[in-house]
């Protein structure tokens, strides 16, 4: 039988597309439904955060970090204040550290809930999205009470946090965690056993730990392959060494493992929040800091475990109140590199399943 000649189709998925989670453009060559070649095109949301930072004082940079990974602003805040505090060798009061851990872990939960919701929405299930967002909304409301904003919190300051927790806030957090435990059960019943969901994610987008390390992946994308690496455990910063929690690792490194890791990490974060909320001491929330922050001349790198991986910050300082150069190691950007490798030979429907599971936030990819 003679070969039928078929033409390859060049498709632009995005930058305006319901499932690219923002303004990502993926140029794919498809042969029927089979993907032959993929090229992610980034930069549509580039705002030059790093360049802008060179002209700003350290406190002024904090609101800009809110806008990078806008699903986990607290973690970005933490990354920069942690970096400056380490560079300047500042002490942070105990209460502030505890508040930071609570909001950071709550934000991690919120971010993972968004992942779960949008991922299921990408796969075509509507309801989990609404359930996840309704629960995230409760976290956002709590952040609103403590920081005054619902997305761009700008809550942390070098040397502490901006506000102390309002009255009853810590108790509300504990109540919410108890409530979320029940909701997570519901989520498991609704999604984790669904055959169609399992068919779509099991064995899709597999890579092993070596590949992940070679591509520089971090966070859940790395842990899903079974590689145990979590900065909160391996290079403890803040007061994470005081809490009892497990690092979740996957087995095979497919989309299903990444889904399971997200689900389990929510549970681990809930544990941390509970411990921090129970141990929280009284006291000031702002340490002694100089009026104008001047990082001593030199080069500094410090990283925190973001919701999507290692969120690193490299500061080159000349001893002035503004950084000479600031480089963000943005996990989404690094994780996105593996997309072409994962997608070659897959079908069009898998494109969305794989892209969703890599879990990128375009604000962070383009910064």
């Amino acid at each position, binding site marked *: 039988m003679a070969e039928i000649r078929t033409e390859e189709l060049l498709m632009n998925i995005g930058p305006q597309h319901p499932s690219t989670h923002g303004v990502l453009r993926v140029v794919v060559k498809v042969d029927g439904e089979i993907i032959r070649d993929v090229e992610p095109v980034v930069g549509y949301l580039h705002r030059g955060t790093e360049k802008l930072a060179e002209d700003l004082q350290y406190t002024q940079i904090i609101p800009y970090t809110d806008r990078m990974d806008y699903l986990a602003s607290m973690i970005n805040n933490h990354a920069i204040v942690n970096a400056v505090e380490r560079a300047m060798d500042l002490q942070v009061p105990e209460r502030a550290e505890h508040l930071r851990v609570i909001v950071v872990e709550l934000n991690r939960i919120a971010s993972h809930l968004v992942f779960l919701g949008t991922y299921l929405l990408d796969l075509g299930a509507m309801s989990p999205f609404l359930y996840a967002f309704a629960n995230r909304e409760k976290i956002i409301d709590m952040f609103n009470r403590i920081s005054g904003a619902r997305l761009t919190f700008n809550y942390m300051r070098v040397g502490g946090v901006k506000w102390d927790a309002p009255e009853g806030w810590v108790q509300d957090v504990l109540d919410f965690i108890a409530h979320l435990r029940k909701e997570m059960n519901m989520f498991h019943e*609704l999604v984790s056993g*669904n055959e169609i969901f399992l068919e779509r994610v099991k064995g899709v987008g597999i890579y092993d730990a070596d590949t992940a390390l070679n591509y520089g992946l971090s966070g859940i994308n790395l842990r899903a392959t079974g590689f145990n690496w979590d900065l909160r455990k391996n290079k403890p910063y803040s007061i994470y060494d005081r809490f009892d929690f497990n690092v979740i690792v996957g087995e095979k490194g497919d989309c299903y493992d990444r889904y399971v890791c997200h689900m389990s990490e929510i549970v681990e974060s809930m544990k941390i929040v509970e411990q921090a909320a129970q141990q929280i001491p009284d006291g000031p929330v702002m340490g002694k800091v100089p009026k104008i922050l001047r990082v001593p001349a030199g080069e500094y790198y410090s990283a925190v475990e973001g919701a999507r991986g290692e969120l690193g910050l490299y500061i080159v300082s000349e001893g002035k109140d503004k950084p000479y150069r600031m480089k963000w190691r943005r996990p989404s950007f690094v994780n996105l590199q593996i997309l072409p490798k994962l997608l070659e030979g897959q079908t069009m*429907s898998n494109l969305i399943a794989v892209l969703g599971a890599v879990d990128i936030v375009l604000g962070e990819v383009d910064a």
Partner: protein
Amino acid sequence: MVEFFSWLDKPLELSTFLNMVIGAVIVLAFILGVVTYTIYFERKVIGWMQWRVGPNRVGPLGLFQTVADVLKLLIKEDVVPAKADRTIFLIAPIITFFPSFMVLAIIPFTATHIFTAASNVGVLYYIALSAMSILGVVLGGWASNNKYSLIGGMRSAAQMISYEVPLAMSMLGVVLLAGSLNLVEIVEQQKQFPYVWYIVPQALGFIIFLISAIAELNRTPFDLPEAESELVGGYFTEYTGFRFAFFMLAEYVYVFAMSALGTTLFLGGWEGPFLPGWLWFAIKVSACIFFFFWVRATMPRIRTDQLLVFSWKVLIPLSLLNLVITAVVKYLI
């Protein structure tokens, strides 16, 4: 009155022709109303399942929401993309839409089926006509000259061809039991000994029917041709205004028609105690429609290859098995 409208066994004269036209127009208007509130019902049900209120602004309880939506679509500009195949692009929605209304001719709404053609090939007629709709979908996907539309149209073709077969075969079980292709006759048969609806002897057939019906209707979890998160809008990505409305209308008419067909074949049609026949029919159809929406609120979307594999390797063998068992049992009894 009933006498006047029973045109079935009269010769074709002006008066009977007039009756037929009036009947068709009444059914059409009725169906438009049904579709309007099917959409409303869908949005409300899915809203409630997702902790939302659903439409609530236009009219009391949002009852006129769909009317407003349709009005908006009707007064929109009729855009035809410059590179589209103009003629085909324009007629594709009509090709999809016409059969969807035509299949309603054989659905027996009540015992005194005034406007129903009690055709002797009812089941066959339904299958044949509903298969025509797919032409419009494929043509629309092709003519739009949009890559998403094209993929959506092609997926749709593959899906429909695969699921027509189990759908038809699941109906054949009922046809065997009733010994007739006439839908009215099938309902009448369910009233007689052993006084059970065909859902009982044909449980497997009913499940196959439901699954293939959802696939045939392009609804979640089989809504690949219009998979929003992958193909933006699928075959109607480029359609706007009233042509888009035609596609949507066809889709929801089919939801009603398929539910009505399922009700007739498996749930005893208008038959039921105490309440009048039309009410029973309405209740059963609503239950079927509710089930479709319920599934939509729960399920993720299946993948194309899995969809085809599921049809050819699972549903078709099962429906064949069902058919053989039915035939053997029927022969033995």
